[in-house]
């Protein structure tokens, strides 16, 4: 009798500790794409979110981040993560999207979070950003600040996501000034296009030479070349500016980077991890736009004095109009379907 009581007692303790440890310390796993954790852009933002969560939130210290440089590595990473009790697996970035889409159906029990693309499976939370809203606002800002009435856009790899930026950016500029001229160019058509600042610089120099005075880049690591071009051409007739993308890049070249279109990747990663901890994790499509901080424009000490109060008010007005859907923002994704 005594034995039985003890064993029940012990069993209940073990059961208890198991369930408690599972509830308190979920293990978070994250897969970054080819650009790596220091790309000053998308991956870096997600990585920072992960690091913050590791320091401040009660998640397992065994949580892991890895870079997947190619599809085979991605496959291996997912296989090892699914075997090691990850509560959720984050997949960051558009470069891994196709590969992960093919892999997810093999692991119906595992919960995934896919950032930047939509995958319609029951175990996936897809997080997408309203780049169209952000780029529209940036286009409006660029048109407001342009002295030559000519602005530019430089994309990285020529893919629909970046076309979405371009379409909305042009629409935003035309909203302020219907006669504005927008040059656009793409660094390339292969994956190298994200890491080719030299070529992006030449593209930007060419656009500046043709009369553009503000260029918005959506080119990942290549975007640095756009900043360099703005810096080089700075002494000519008009002040030249560049606009950063994905993370706040104002600090890279203060006074030259007019502003940045930020994506709240860090915050969404932290929010999602929090929802896992609170056991409120839900699957399905979640979209983050101007209204909930998913996309925004960056204003900080580096670019504060480039904007007057009048500018700020105007930008605020446009922003609230977009949120209230008083302004129709064209969406490349929808246009492409029709």
């Amino acid at each position, binding site marked *: 009798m005594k034995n039985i009581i003890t064993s029940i007692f012990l069993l209940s303790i073990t059961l208890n500790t198991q369930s408690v440890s599972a509830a308190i310390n979920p293990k978070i796993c994250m897969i970054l794409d080819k650009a*790596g954790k*220091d790309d*000053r852009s998308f991956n870096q933002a997600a990585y920072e979110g992960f690091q913050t969560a590791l320091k401040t939130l009660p998640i397992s210290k065994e949580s892991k981040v890895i870079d997947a440089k190619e599809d085979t590595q991605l496959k291996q990473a997912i296989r090892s993560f699914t075997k090691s009790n990850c509560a959720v697996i984050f997949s960051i970035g558009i470069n891994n999207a196709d590969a992960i889409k093919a892999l997810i159906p093999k692991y119906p029990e595992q919960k995934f979070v896919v950032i930047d693309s939509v995958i319609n499976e029951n175990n996936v939370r897809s997080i997408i950003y309203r780049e169209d809203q952000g780029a529209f606002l940036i286009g409006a800002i660029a048109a407001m600040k342009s002295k030559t009435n000519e602005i530019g856009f430089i994309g990285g790899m020529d893919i629909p996501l970046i076309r979405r930026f371009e379409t909305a950016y042009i629409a935003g500029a035309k909203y302020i000034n219907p006669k504005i001229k927008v040059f656009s160019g793409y660094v390339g*058509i292969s994956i190298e296009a994200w*890491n080719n600042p030299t070529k992006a*610089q030449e593209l930007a120099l060419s656009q500046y030479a043709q009369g553009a005075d503000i260029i918005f880049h959506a080119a990942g*690591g290549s975007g640095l070349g756009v900043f360099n071009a703005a810096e080089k051409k700075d002494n000519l007739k008009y002040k030249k500016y560049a606009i950063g993308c994905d993370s706040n890049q104002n600090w890279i070249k203060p006074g030259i980077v007019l502003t940045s279109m930020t994506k709240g990747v860090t915050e969404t990663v932290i929010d999602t991890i929090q929802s896992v901890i609170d056991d409120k994790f839900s699957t399905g499509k979640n979209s983050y736009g101007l209204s909930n901080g998913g996309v925004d424009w960056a204003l900080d000490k580096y670019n504060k004095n480039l904007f007057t109060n009048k500018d700020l008010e105007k930008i605020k007005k446009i922003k609230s109009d977009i949120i209230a859907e008083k302004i129709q923002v064209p969406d490349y994704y929808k246009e492409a379907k029709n």
Partner: protein
Amino acid sequence: MDWINLAFSIGGATIRMSAPLIFAALGGLFSERSGIINIALEGKMLAGAFAAAAVTTLTQNPILGLIAGGFAGMLMAIVYGIFVINFKANQIVVGTAITILASGTVPFVSQILFQNTGSTPEIPIGNRFIYTPIIIAWLLVISIWCLFKFSPYGMWHKFAGEHPDALQTSGIDVIRTRWSGVLVSGFLAGLGGATLSICLSSSYTRNMTAGRGYMALAALIVGGWKPITAALACLAFGFFDALGITLQGIQIPKPEFSIQFLNQIWSFFVSAQFIQIIPYILTITIVAGFVGKSRPPKALGQPYLRNR
């Protein structure tokens, strides 16, 4: 934008874009003429790009940075040389391995020095070169042409690649000649990488060479393993790159043909995607023997065994 401005814009871009290719192609020339295939140019450039940016950041001196870039390329060349010259390993395999080694080692060293695997800190514009490396590249083209044309040193290199036995018989050490070719090659490729990071850009960023090592190799083959023609081939590649860039920016007049099919053909040939593939089409056409002959050195890729 008028035509003169357009010409200047394309011309400037051509000269800038081709400079790193010229360095790397000249580097490839040195090792390939002495009989060592140099598919590792890409890796050596990457090492050079990183070392140049890192040293410039640490010392605030771009000249030291440029030299460091050269020596980083040379360091890669030493590893390469030990395997392919002394151990007589397969040159293609080791060359590929060196490129992979560079793309892994560089982020590692970067993490140690700057706590960042993706890029080095920004180099202010005063600490960067504006056009010095570009001038150096063209001076090198001429001096290397003279070297191969007139000096015995150049002759030894040619024989090490064409007929190593003959060179050995005449009393010149083939192994030593090949070593010097590989080392100079590494140094030049490193300079090419340095040009990318501290002249044409403002820091090292991950994999910033973006296939230029392979393009340089192609230019070398197109140029028939000769310095001046190889440099011209680099210039042509740079030109098509620049053309692609400029054409993306301007509105190309679209003639309205009465037949729909012709309209489609026109928009296909003036699309940015098509212009971007021109350099590669050109390479394939030329390498396939369309324009004259492009003959590699006879003993290229064959390890030299001294006591056969």
